[in-house]
């Protein structure tokens, strides 16, 4: 009976890989064991069939190119400088654009002396404030609206007050404007004398960061990016 171990020994015998002791032993067995000799013959046929297969030629060259192996051409020293400068200029440009779009400088037109209220120096209502002026306007505005409501002061005065000045002032003003005094309570001549409330004219004035700066940054970024691209193209051309 031929076992796996015998097949391995026969295969090694075919390849001349047996030690002298194993070689003598297998050769003596082969002369007496026909089954073993038959297996050896089978192994030899298989081996010879493979060995006589024609060698196959490569259908094309498999040489590697620099781009295939992912090698990059050596760049000139100025390349990273231009690249970095273009990136920085682009980021600055984006920053300036963001600043100009998010924080526009708004001015209220002629009807906006109210803008001055916020600084506590507004004429009329606040007057000369003797107390810390940061707190004064809201308190004074609250008092002013109450007084106005009580004494039926013309609403035009209230409308000129900035709604966004302080929350309390805004609320008071809102209340005052939402609940105007009944029309029949006012004398006729007063009604006709009330001027139309002036709507504050909001005007966008010049951007925080001048457009000329942005144009300069844009130009600088483009020049640097162009120079970096040119250097890279030249380096690649030389490399290939």
């Amino acid at each position, binding site marked *: 009976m031929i076992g796996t171990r015998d097949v*391995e020994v026969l295969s090694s015998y075919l390849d001349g890989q047996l030690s002298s002791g194993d070689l003598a032993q297998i050769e003596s067995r082969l002369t007496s064991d026909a089954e073993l000799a038959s297996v050896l*013959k089978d192994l030899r046929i298989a081996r010879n*069939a493979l060995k006589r*297969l024609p060698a196959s*030629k490569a259908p094309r060259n*498999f040489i*590697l190119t620099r781009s*295939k*192996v992912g090698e990059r051409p050596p760049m000139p020293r100025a390349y990273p400088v231009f690249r970095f400068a273009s990136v920085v200029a682009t980021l600055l440009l984006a920053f300036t654009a963001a600043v100009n779009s998010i924080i526009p400088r708004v001015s209220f037109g002629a009807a906006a002396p109210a803008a001055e209220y916020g600084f506590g120096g507004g004429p009329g209502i606040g007057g000369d404030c003797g107390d810390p002026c940061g707190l004064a306007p809201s308190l004074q505005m609250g008092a002013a609206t109450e007084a106005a409501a009580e004494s039926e002061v013309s609403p035009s005065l209230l409308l000129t007050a900035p709604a966004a000045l302080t929350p309390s002032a805004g609320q008071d003003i809102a209340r005052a404007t939402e609940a105007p005094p009944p029309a029949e309570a006012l004398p006729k001549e007063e009604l006709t004398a009330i001027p139309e409330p002036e709507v504050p004219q909001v005007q966008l004035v010049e951007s925080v960061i001048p457009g000329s700066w942005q144009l300069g940054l844009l130009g600088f970024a483009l020049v640097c990016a162009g120079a970096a691209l040119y250097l890279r193209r030249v380096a690649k051309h030389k490399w290939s």
Partner: protein
Amino acid sequence: MDEPSLVRAAQRGDLDSFNTLVLYYQDMVYGTALRIVGDPDLAADAAQEAFLSAFRTLVTFRGGSFKSFLMRTVTNACYDELRRRKRRPTTPLEPDTEDGEMDSPGWLADPNMSPEETAEAVELEHAIQHCLENLPVEFRSVVVLADIQGLDYSEIASAARMPLGTVKSRLARARLRLRECLRAFEELLPSIFRLEGEGVA
């Protein structure tokens, strides 16, 4: 060709030196891949991938047989290709010939052979390839390295990263299975295959 110095230069990143080695070994690498994967296009892909991988991992090569190193790379590339093919089986766009066989490869066109001999050689080659493809891939790679590429046992052990005993065992079993398969194509086997080297190791 001064192989060791070319290998050292390639390890330093010299692509030209590596390409000299590629030109020297490309037939062997492609032939190995073709016998393992059994498809010319897949074999070419595997060979290209093997050379690319060899260049990238050459820094890990610590001397020894460069041929074994290359054979290990190509067998690994073949395993990857076979796994990929198993995951995404494809249908070839080129139609087979009428009898279901692919056109004979150009390298089989021997001007000294008659048309009948050429046809028989093609049939025999297909029969052997068919039997090879019936082997498990671990057996196939061992028998291809030993009997087609002529590597010795220690080189196969290095290329396949397996102990010498495993190489011997797999090679013996692969040969026996091949013989069983080739019985079905007995009439194709020339008598020289059966008689050649009888009684000689």
